[in-house]
Every structure is written in structure tokens, then in C-alpha cells.
């Protein structure tokens, strides 16, 4: 066989094995089969997939927790890999194979998605505080001086207004926004819309979405877009606005009289954590997030409110008080909201959106 031929066909597998090596190296980093009960000072790696907003908070939480763990565990340094993006996008990635050990979602339904795919086996809904680690409220970001006089939800339906809100298919934040409007209307707190009247709630949503001009892929993107000069008002998280203001943003925050309490759950993705032999570590970390120290870090770095609803309604250093702060449980619970009343086939948002678009 001529030498050239041998060389040629040998080179091909060489190249392919390069790729294979790369594959193996990435897989061995993410976990070997079979965990030893005592992993001596080996540096375990924990992967956190989070929604777009709390990168500063988790940065601080991780480094604080890392050093506490190191002191308490014989110098073992736990490494963290982090990824931030739209909450639903992250959920979908995890379902598609992203090896996240912890999922910091912005909505319970996104966690439900991952659980339905069989990746979460713990009872997160009945865990302390329903696994919620951050709390806030849905607010409006407006231009300095509030030139359009936005005070409450009905003001969003004024003709010619340009509203920014993220895409509900990618961002959990988007769904908080919609649920907030729906809830406020159903509770009779929006002038011009009757209490407990689904048709009226739908009418409000339709009026709002007639004015929506941009639907970004994450809550973070949405606010950045607003800051870049687009639109008159952005519906967003209060702590998102506070973060932006701290970074120099000039927008003003308007707290609607009635709005929903945003409760973001952070959950261990059991299947992945088990495969990577880091279940103990991840469970500890998630438990830590509920501690006073962690909550203080959330409050000071991410400007979030206390988790307890009654406490959350009060003003904080950076955020105003909320007159009527309700939770998703007060308006039927996420299951009903997602599958029926709001996002279901005949839900208020689904129908409102179709007619707003048409």
C-alpha cells in the first residue's frame, strides 16, 4: 500500500480522535460513573444555570459560600460554573442536556418543565418557602419625570404608548408581568375593570399588548432595550430596575398600587447532581440561600425584598412599599394560571394576545 495512502487515512482518525478527546475531557469534568463516598480534596464542580438577572448576587453568594465551605471541609474548594439567560431558555437547555446541577429559575412553571422531564425528583414545592430565594414585585420603568403619567395598569392601555416586556416563551419575567396585570384586574384593583371578571382581565391584557412593541428574550434584555431609548415604559422586576439605577440608569420606578409578588425558586436538579456526585454539596448550597446571610446578600446586591409576603410589601432602602401585594396562590396558583386561566388555550393572555395581534 503506498505510503501516501496510509498517511492520508491515518490522519483522518487522528483528527477525529482530537474531537473525541475534547468530548472525553469535557465529559470527565462533568462526572465519572460511580461516586466514592469520600472524595478527598478533589475539586468538585457545580454547574448553576440561572435566569438573567441575579448574576451579581450569585457571584457574591458563591464566593462567600465557597470560602465558608472550604473552612468547614478541610480545604475542599467547590468550583462553580455559571450560566445566565432567559429562565425558560435555561429550562429548555437543561432538558436538552445542559448539565446544570442547580437551576435558579424566575418562575415555578419553568421548574415544573424541568421536573416534568424527569430531571428533578425532590419535592421543591413543599420545601421551605416553596424553594423561593428571591422576592420582588412587578413594576413599571418610565422615563425621568414620568411624562406619560403611568400610575397603574390601566394607564398602559392609553393609545400610542410604547411598552416593552419580554417574550413569555423565553423569559419567566414576562409571565410575571402578565400575571401581575391579570391578578390586579381580577382583584378589582384596576380602575375601569371589574373584580373577578375574566373577560375584563382579558380586555386589560389586550389593551396592554396592543401597545407592546418589543419582546426581548430575557428580562435583562428588555430593560437594557428600554435604557437604550426604546419605548415609553418597560414592565419589569423592581429589583431589576434598582440594579440598573445603581449602575447609572436614569429611569424612574413606578410601583403599581396592586401587583404580584415575584417569587423566584432555586432548585437542585437531582438527576444531574447525582450523576456528578455533588448532591450533598448542592443541597447544602441551596439550603444556604435561605439563610439570613444569603438573604442579606440578595437584598444588598440584588436589591430584592424579603421573602415573606407581608414583609415584602414594606418599603426597603431602594424600593417603595406596595399597597396590594398578592401572590400567585391568591389568584389560583401557577398550575391554574399556566394551564387554564391565563396561558391556557382559552386563557386571558392567549386570547388577548391573538386579538391584539390581529
Amino acid at each position, binding site marked *: 500500500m503506498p505510503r501516501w495512502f496510509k498517511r492520508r487515512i491515518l490522519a483522518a482518525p487522528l483528527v477525529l480522535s482530537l474531537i473525541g478527546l475534547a468530548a472525553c475531557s469535557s465529559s470527565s469534568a462533568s462526572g465519572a460513573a460511580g461516586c466514592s463516598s469520600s472524595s478527598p480534596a478533589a475539586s468538585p464542580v457545580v454547574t448553576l*444555570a440561572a435566569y438573567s438577572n441575579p448574576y451579581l448576587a450569585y457571584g457574591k453568594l458563591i464566593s462567600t459560600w465557597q470560602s465558608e465551605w472550604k473552612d468547614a471541609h478541610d480545604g475542599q474548594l467547590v468550583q462553580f460554573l455559571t450560566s445566565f439567560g432567559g429562565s425558560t431558555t435555561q429550562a429548555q437547555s437543561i432538558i436538552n442536556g445542559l448539565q446544570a446541577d442547580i437551576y435558579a429559575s424566575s418562575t415555578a412553571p419553568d421548574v415544573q418543565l424541568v421536573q416534568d422531564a424527569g430531571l428533578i425528583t425532590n419535592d421543591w414545592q413543599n420545601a421551605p418557602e416553596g424553594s423561593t430565594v428571591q422576592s420582588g414585585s412587578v413594576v413599571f420603568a418610565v422615563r425621568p419625570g414620568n411624562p406619560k403619567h403611568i400610575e397603574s395598569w390601566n394607564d398602559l392601555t392609553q393609545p400610542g404608548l410604547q411598552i416593552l416586556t419580554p417574550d413569555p416563551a423565553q423569559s419567566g419575567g414576562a409571565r410575571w408581568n402578565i400575571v401581575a396585570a391579570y391578578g390586579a384586574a381580577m382583584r378589582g384593583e384596576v380602575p375601569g375593570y371589574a373584580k373577578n371578571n375574566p373577560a375584563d382581565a382579558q380586555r386589560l391584557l389586550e389593551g396592554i399588548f396592543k401597545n407592546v412593541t418589543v419582546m426581548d428574550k430575557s428580562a435583562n434584555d428588555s430593560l437594557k432595550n428600554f435604557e437604550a431609548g426604546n419605548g415609553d415604559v418597560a414592565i419589569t422586576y423592581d429589583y431589576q430596575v434598582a440594579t440598573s439605577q445603581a449602575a447609572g440608569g436614569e429611569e424612574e420606578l413606578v410601583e403599581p398600587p396592586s401587583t404580584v409578588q415575584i417569587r423566584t425558586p432555586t432548585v437542585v436538579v437531582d438527576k444531574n447532581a447525582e450523576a456528578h456526585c455533588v448532591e450533598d454539596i448542592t443541597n447544602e448550597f441551596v439550603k444556604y440561600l435561605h439563610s439570613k446571610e444569603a438573604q442579606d446578600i440578595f437584598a444588598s446586591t440584588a436589591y430584592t425584598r424579603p421573602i415573606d409576603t407581608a414583609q415584602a410589601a414594606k418599603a426597603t432602602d431602594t424600593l417603595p412599599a406596595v399597597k396590594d401585594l398578592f401572590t400567585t396562590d391568591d389568584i389560583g396558583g401557577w398550575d391554574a394560571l399556566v394551564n387554564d386561566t391565563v396561558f391556557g388555550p382559552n386563557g386571558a393572555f392567549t386570547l388577548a394576545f391573538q386579538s391584539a395581534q390581529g
Partner: protein
Amino acid sequence: MSAPPTERVKPSPAGDEDLTRLRNADARRGRLVRGVMLAVALVYVSVLLLAPLAGIFIYALKSGLGTIGQTFSQPDVRHAFLLTFVIMAITVVVTTFFGVIVALVLARDRFPGKRLVSALVDLPLAVSPVVVGLMAVLLFGRGGWFEPFFASRGIQIMFALPAMILVTIFISIPFVIREVVPVLQELGMEEEQAAWTLGASRLQTFIRVTLRNIRWGLLYGIALSAARAIGEVGAVLIVSGTLTGKTETATLYILRAFDQYQDQQGYIVALTLATFSIVLLIGIETFKRRRTAEAD
């Protein structure tokens, strides 16, 4: 203008006087028109291409050398550059190696369906990077065609380096091939045949004659391929999972930096990529000039 044109005739020596007169009168208007054309062209290029480049220089350097140093000392930035480089290197090796083979086949071989193969090579140019990411998801994501095969062996393709390399290869396939094929076609096989007649082995001929003859076109293709690999963002965004410090390329870092109110760092990394690209560009230009010079 004087003589009414009745038919197109070649100017004869007898018409030289007319020619000169027309040319002189014309030359002035000609210069004016050309001047205007040149000015318009220069303005367009300046506004469209140069101004943004200047913008990024200004923005990145505005923060001062301190921030620049600080940006490069960040581990995630360094890792991002390293990752970009690794992906580029592997992509270039694969697309060059196989690209030369395919180019040889396309330029010299004849078989039914060759047209289809040639068209196939052009396909990646038409596919949006987002769609490439989707292709990878369909093949390697959960429920994908190859997912069970790799999952059972504990090999991570999706949301890890292999998927990122594969999509980058897909996107970079055409460049080497498209640059080498015309060169091969123009060269013909004479020199190779001469070498064979003189008793050279196939391998010797390939290295000493073929490769040598296509070198400028090949290098041009490699440079284009490398530039494309460095710049890839749409497909890797979908398949990487953007794990900071693990699957975040330089371009993905830039996206995140702008997301997380770190515009300065974003500009600095973008400027670095731009600078590297420009160096690559000058390399491309040099290769191209040598290639066209040799082709003449």
C-alpha cells in the same frame, strides 16, 4: 460633441486628430466625474466601514489602560480567548485537511452527481448560524438522532466543546474548498504529470508540486476560515449553554458583558477580536495579491 455616430467603427489612424481633440475636452470632464466617483466611494466606505471601527477604538480605549489590563486579567476573559483559539485551531485543521481532498476531487475528478457535491459545499454559506445551532440540537440534543449513542457512553456533545467545534466546522467548510478549486482548475495537471514522468512518487508530487502551486489560494482560504471560526456567535450561542469559564467563547463573552452592564469589558474584548481580525485581514490581502500575481 461633433460627428454624429452612424455606425460603430474602429477609430482609424486618419481620425487621430479628432481623437486627440475629443480626448482633451473630455479629459477635464472626465477628471471631474472620476473625482466625484472617488469621493463618493471614499465617503461611503468611511461612513460604513471605517467610522464604526474608529468608534470601537475610541470606546475601548476611553476607559484607559487600567481597565484594559484589568479585563485581560479576568479569568473568564482569558478562558474565553483560549476557547475561541482552540475551536479555531481544530476547525482550521479539519477544514483544511478535508478541504484539500474535496477540492482535488471537485477540480480533477468526474463522476455522476459531481454538481450536487459542488452545490453541497456551498450550502453552509446559505445557512444562518441559528439554523446550524438548531441542526446540532436535532442531532445531539435530548431526543436527537445521535444522543442515545453518545449518552450511553457518557460522552457529552451538546453544551460542551464538541458541539461547538462541530457547528464551527460546518460553517467554515466552504472557504478552503472554494479558494483552492479554481486554482487547481487553472493549473491543470501538467506539472504533476511532468513530475510523474520523472519518476516522482505520488506523495512527493503532491507535496512538492500540488501543494506548492495552490499555496496562496490555500492560505487565503485558511485565513478566511479562521476569521469565520473566530467570529462565530449564533450557532455557539445555541449549543454551548454559555457556561462562563467553560463554554463561553470570546464572542459569547461580549454578548454577556453587554448584558451585565460591563460595556467597557465588552468593547475591549471586541476590540481585541477586531485587531486580530485586521491582522488576519492584512494576511489575507497579502495572500490574495500573491495568488492573483501568480495566476497571471
